[in-house]
C-alpha cells in the first residue's frame, strides 16, 4: 500500500461537549418537528486566526466520531483521520483551525437515539426523529457559529461526510469557500439501499433489539449489529483488497471442513463485527444509514440556485476500486455542479483499497488534498 509516514501529530487532545439547542430553543428538523436539547461532542486542532478565517470543518462518515486526530489520554491509537490532520500534514494544523463534531443521531457524545428523551425520562429509542442530511448540517452550522466563525475556509468529508459537505455548501455557499466531497454520492442506488436494508433487518430482527428499548431491558442486539457491520465491511473493501489481504488462506485453527471460522477472511470479519460492538450503537446504525438512503439534494430543481449566485470551489474525488460509492456517483456530482457553472475539480484516484481508501494515506490522494489545501490557504495567508 502507498503510505506516507506521518509528519506530525497534534498530540494529546480531548473531546468537548456543548449544548447547541435546548428544549425551549430546539433544533427545527427538515421534515417538521423539533429536537431539543441537542448536545454535540467536538474536537478542534490548531489555532483559529484573529480574523477567524482559517477554519476547516471535518464531517465524519457513518461510524466516525469527533476524535479525528491526535491521542486521547492513555490511548495507543490516534483519531480516525490522523494521517491527514496534523502539523505538516495535508490538512496542516500549523495553518488551519480544524473542527470535527460527532453527528447527532450518533452515539459518541452527541444527542442520539440512546440519549434521554426529556418527555419520558427514558432513552428515545425509536421515538427519536428520523433525520435528514440537512439536519446534521444545521447542527454543524450552530457549532461553527458557537465557535465565532462566520465562514469556513473549507469543509471536507468522505462518504456520508461528503454528503454533508455537499448539502452544506450547496445551501449556504456564503459559509463554505472550498468544499471537498470524497467518495460520496448525491443519490444512493437501489443496490446501496439494499445493503443497508439487510443491515437494518439484521439488527431489528435480533431478539435483543426489543423494539429499540434494549437499553431499558438491559440487553443489546449484538448479533444483529455485528452482522450488519460484517456485511458493510465487505462493501468498504474491493474484491482485490480482500484477495490481497487474505486470499483463500485457512484460519490457523482449521481442522476438518465445517461451519466454524475456516478461512482467514471469516476471522477478520468476525473480529470487525465484534470490535464494532464496543464502540457503536444499533439505533444509531439504523438512523444514520436512513439519513443516507433519503439523501437526494439534486432532486430539488432549486438545489443549486444559491451556488449559481455565489460559486463554491469544489474538489470531488473518487477511488477507482470503490464499488460502494464508485466513480459514477462522483461524476454525477461533478456533472451537476459543472452544469451549474461551478469551479469544480475532479479526480479518480487509483487505489486498490475500495471505499475505505478515503481513510488511508494513498499517495496521489493525499498529494491532491495537499495541493488543494495549499491553494485554499493562499486565500487567507497572512
Amino acid at each position: 500500500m502507498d503510505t506516507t509516514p506521518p509528519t506530525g501529530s497534534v498530540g494529546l487532545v480531548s473531546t468537548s461537549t456543548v449544548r447547541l439547542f435546548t428544549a425551549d430553543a430546539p433544533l427545527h428538523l427538515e421534515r417538521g418537528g423539533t429536537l431539543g436539547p441537542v448536545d454535540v461532542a467536538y474536537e478542534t486542532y490548531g489555532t483559529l486566526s484573529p480574523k477567524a478565517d482559517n477554519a476547516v470543518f471535518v464531517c465524519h462518515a457513518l461510524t466516525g466520531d469527533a476524535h479525528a486526530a491526535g491521542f486521547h489520554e492513555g490511548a495507543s491509537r490516534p483519531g480516525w483521520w490522523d494521517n491527514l490532520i496534523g502539523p505538516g500534514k495535508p490538512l496542516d494544523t500549523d495553518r488551519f483551525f480544524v473542527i470535527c463534531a460527532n453527528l447527532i443521531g450518533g452515539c459518541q457524545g452527541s444527542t442520539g437515539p440512546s440519549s434521554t428523551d426529556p418527555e419520558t425520562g427514558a432513552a428515545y429509542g425509536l421515538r427519536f426523529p428520523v433525520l435528514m442530511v440537512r439536519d446534521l448540517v444545521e447542527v454543524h452550522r450552530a457549532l461553527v457559529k458557537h465557535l465565532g466563525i462566520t465562514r469556513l475556509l473549507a469543509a471536507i468529508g468522505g462518504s456520508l461526510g461528503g454528503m454533508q459537505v455537499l448539502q452544506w455548501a450547496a445551501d449556504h455557499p456564503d459559509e463554505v469557500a472550498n468544499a471537498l466531497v470524497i467518495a460520496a454520492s448525491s443519490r444512493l442506488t437501489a443496490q446501496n439501499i439494499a445493503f443497508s436494508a439487510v443491515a437494518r433487518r439484521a439488527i431489528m430482527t435480533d431478539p435483543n433489539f426489543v423494539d429499540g428499548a434494549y437499553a431499558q431491558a438491559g440487553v443489546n442486539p449484538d448479533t444483529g449489529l455485528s452482522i450488519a457491520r460484517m456485511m458493510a465491511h465487505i462493501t468498504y473493501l474491493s474484491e482485490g483488497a480482500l484477495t490481497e489481504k487474505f486470499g483463500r488462506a485457512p484460519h490457523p485453527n482449521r481442522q476438518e471442513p465445517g461451519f466454524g471460522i475456516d478461512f482467514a477472511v471469516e476471522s477478520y470479519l468476525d473480529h470487525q463485527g465484534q470490535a464494532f460492538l464496543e464502540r457503536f450503537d444499533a439505533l444509531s446504525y439504523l438512523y444514520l444509514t436512513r439519513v443516507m438512503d433519503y439523501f437526494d439534494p439534486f432532486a430539488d430543481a432549486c438545489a443549486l440556485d444559491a451556488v449559481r449566485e455565489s460559486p463554491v470551489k469544489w474538489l470531488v474525488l473518487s477511488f477507482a476500486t470503490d464499488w460502494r460509492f464508485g466513480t459514477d456517483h462522483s461524476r454525477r456530482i461533478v456533472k451537476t455542479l459543472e452544469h451549474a457553472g461551478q469551479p469544480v475539480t475532479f479526480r479518480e484516484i487509483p487505489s486498490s483499497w475500495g471505499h475505505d481508501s478515503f481513510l488511508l494515506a494513498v499517495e496521489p490522494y493525499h498529494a491532491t488534498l495537499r495541493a488543494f489545501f495549499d491553494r485554499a490557504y493562499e486565500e487567507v495567508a497572512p
Partner: protein
Amino acid sequence: MSLRPDLALVADLIPRGSRVLDLGCGSGELLAHLIEEASCRGTGVEIDPGQVLSAIRLGVPVIELDMDNELDDFSDHSYDVVVLSRTVQTLRRPAAVLRHMGRIADQLIVSVPNFGYWPHRLRLLGGRMPMGRDLPYSWYDSPNLRFTTLVEMEELFAKEGLQIERRIPLTPSGRPITAPDRLANLFAGAAVYSLRA
C-alpha cells in the same frame, strides 16, 4: 506570470469575461492567466496526473477525464470558448472531439503541429520520420497518434462544418511566421485556428 508564446497567442483570441473550456489544459497555465488577467471563468480537462496536480495547485478547476470518451458530460452551449491546444494529434477520435467542441461552445480554438513543415518533408525524403521542436518524439515513444498537415486539418474542419475565422501559422518556437499565408503548409511548424461552429 508570463505566458508561453503559443499560449499568449491563444489567450489573445479569447474575449474578456468568457467561460472557457480548455481541453488538454496541462498545468493550467492558460486558464490561470485568463482567470487572473481577463476575468474569465473556466474548466480544464487533463488526463496526466502530474499536470492535474499542478493545475489544482494553481487554483484552476480541472476535471480528470478521457477526452475520447467522456466529453458527453459537458452540455450544449455551456461555454463561450473551447480550446484544444496541441492535443488534437494525440486523440484517438479527433473528429468526434471536434464535433463535441462545436456542440459545447460557439468559438473553438485549435492549435496543431504541421507534419507538412518543409524540414519534416526533407526528413521523410531522407527515409526518416519527422522530428523537430514541434515533434520531439521518436516514432516508438510518441504520444502523437494522428499525423496531419494544415491542409488536411482544414479539410476536416470543413467536413465538420467549422468555419475558419482566423489562422495563425507559427514557427517551431511558437511565433507567427512571416512567409506568405498560402505557403503556410510548407513554412509553418504549427498553426493556431480560431473557428466558429
